[in-house]
């Protein structure tokens, strides 16, 4: 199988798994899977240089938050491989995409399928909105706009330590409403942190609806360029374009890949929900039945 085929297989698996959970749970962050499936699939299968998972295939239960004396504590970073100087690191910022990331980990063999069954169960770390103990997560990022700044600290430290690995950050376009995000972008430029590569799921959606009706963030590319970054725009559902974007030269500057995406790509039955995609709820039985039918037609009985 070519890497393109593998990336597409992973993306399809992400959509299938997140759709299944949305049906099972009576709701979920499904549009995020639709928009970001190819981004995460391409990052994990082609772009990032990660080692194999060093975390238990089935995630351990919740064993307390970080605090003095909690020796059992670990973040979910081990699913992204060991921390080595030459290896890349991955940081997810909009952690309400957690299920999308968990599905990615399963599809790429980093987490067992049983781990997904723990999703949103009490006492589990496979939480609905990921915390740093959740599989594939390394930072507390649920208060949006903080991850990129945290990665600045990590990137500065890795540079001091002479590490060559890159630092990949997955962000949502809604985070570019936030002042701290722009503080971080200017700081990336100030410190010439070219080890930082940001993939933005630019699905044009936020909690209230279409971003352009909530706050003005465009022209995102021009703004990023003006702030001293290298920025490119690609079709966020084109795995080759997503992979090629990582190769854009950006010496001395952080690289931002604005992946223009569609919030119902691959689950077209959601299209009629426009302009509200943030959290898919079923307010009428027919809505759920429509998604059920779509699922069976597209993926058969397999869940």
């Amino acid at each position: 199988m070519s890497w393109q085929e593998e990336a597409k297989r992973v993306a399809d698996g992400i959509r299938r798994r997140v759709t299944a959970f949305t049906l099972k749970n009576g709701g979920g962050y499904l549009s995020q899977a639709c928009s970001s499936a190819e981004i995460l699939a391409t990052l994990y299968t082609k772009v990032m240089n990660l080692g194999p998972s060093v975390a238990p295939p089935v995630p351990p239960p919740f064993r307390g938050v970080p605090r003095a004396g909690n020796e059992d504590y670990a973040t979910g970073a081990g699913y992204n491989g060991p921390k080595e100087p030459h290896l890349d690191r991955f940081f997810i910022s909009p952690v309400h995409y957690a299920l999308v990331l968990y599905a990615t980990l399963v599809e790429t063999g980093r987490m067992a399928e049983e781990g997904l069954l723990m999703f949103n169960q009490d006492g589990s770390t496979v939480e609905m909105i990921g915390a740093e103990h959740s599989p594939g997560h390394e930072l507390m990022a649920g208060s949006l706009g903080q991850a990129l700044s945290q990665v600045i600290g990590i990137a500065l430290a890795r540079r001091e330590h002479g590490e060559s690995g890159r630092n990949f950050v997955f962000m949502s376009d809604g985070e570019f409403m936030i002042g701290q995000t722009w503080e971080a972008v200017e700081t990336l430029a100030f410190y010439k942190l070219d080890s930082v590569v940001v993939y933005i799921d630019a699905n044009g959606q936020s909690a209230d609806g279409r971003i352009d009706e909530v706050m003005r963030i465009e022209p995102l590319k021009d703004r990023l360029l003006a702030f001293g970054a290298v920025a490119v725009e690609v079709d966020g559902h084109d795995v080759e374009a997503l992979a090629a974007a990582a190769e854009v030269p950006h010496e001395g500057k952080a690289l931002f890949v604005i992946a223009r995406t569609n919030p119902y790509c691959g689950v077209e039955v959601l299209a009629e929900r426009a302009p509200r995609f943030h959290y898919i709820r079923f307010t009428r039985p027919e809505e759920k039945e429509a998604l059920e039918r779509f699922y069976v037609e597209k993926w058969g009985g397999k869940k």
Partner: protein
Amino acid sequence: MGGQEVKLETQVHQRNLVKWAADKPEVVVFSADLTSSTEVRLFAETYPERFYSFGMTEQNMISAAGGMAREGFTPWVHTFAVFLYRRALDQIQMSVAYPNLRVRIVGFLPGITTPGGATHQAIEDVAIMRAVPNMTVLETGDATDVETVLDVAQAVDGPVYIRMLRGQIPRLFTEPFKLGRARHLKKGTDLALFTAGITTEEAMRATEVLEKKGVSITHLHVTTHKPFDDPAVLEAIENARYGVITFENHTIVGGLGSEVAEVMAEAGVGKKLLRLGIPDTYAHGGSRPYLMRYYGLDALALVRGVERMLGEELGIEEEDLKAVRLEPVHGDFKAEAL
């Protein structure tokens, strides 16, 4: 004996930090465009590779400090306290405190130590930072506290907030302070008095005169607001015949007064507690002596508080307090022997 002035020292942190950090390559300093104002200019000049300018991006700076701490460095983040615990509280909580990271948040301009007015005066920082899980909260009251807080903080395996002093600072003590242990300045049986930061010097002035009037006081200088578990605190409270007074350069809500109240309530000590401090109000800009008088933070305010608690007037006036000559305290209870 007219000399009331205790020995003042300047730029204590500026010089001390550079000396202290010389053999600690893991120590890095973050600054938010207030490098000179927070006495880290000399650090920046001496160790430019360990100095990080973040400009006025405090939220970004705090999150970045968390990131750097995750990779083994110990960021000492310097700026005015208000821009940290107010502006960047969410970042302090989620990027630093939740992950229990070794970030040292050095907040300057506690209470009314600045003429900068309400925007610059950290009057409720202890209350807020004390409520943050995993956070250790320290406060400095003299030059020795300012110097020795570095070792105390660096030994904590988690985040630390420090109420820091700058500029001209009295040297009241000669011994290093210890985490979770108050300094004992006087031992007596009428009142238990707790002070922290700049109120300690004022209190030392007042207690000298009060003692001459026959008021017997146990006086503890608190440097650790959290954890607040020094057994000497309860002991002092239990031994106080008339009651307990707290005296702080902070609002009376959530700071030292509340810390002592919690200890009293949990131990079931039914005694009067008088909380002296900024009375649940914002302050305004002005000189330090003016503000200390206006908000009731000077030695005379404490004397009046003691009178209220004892229910009698002691006949102490401004001139009596001015005549007090303070000497550095060399160890616990040394002041008693003077």
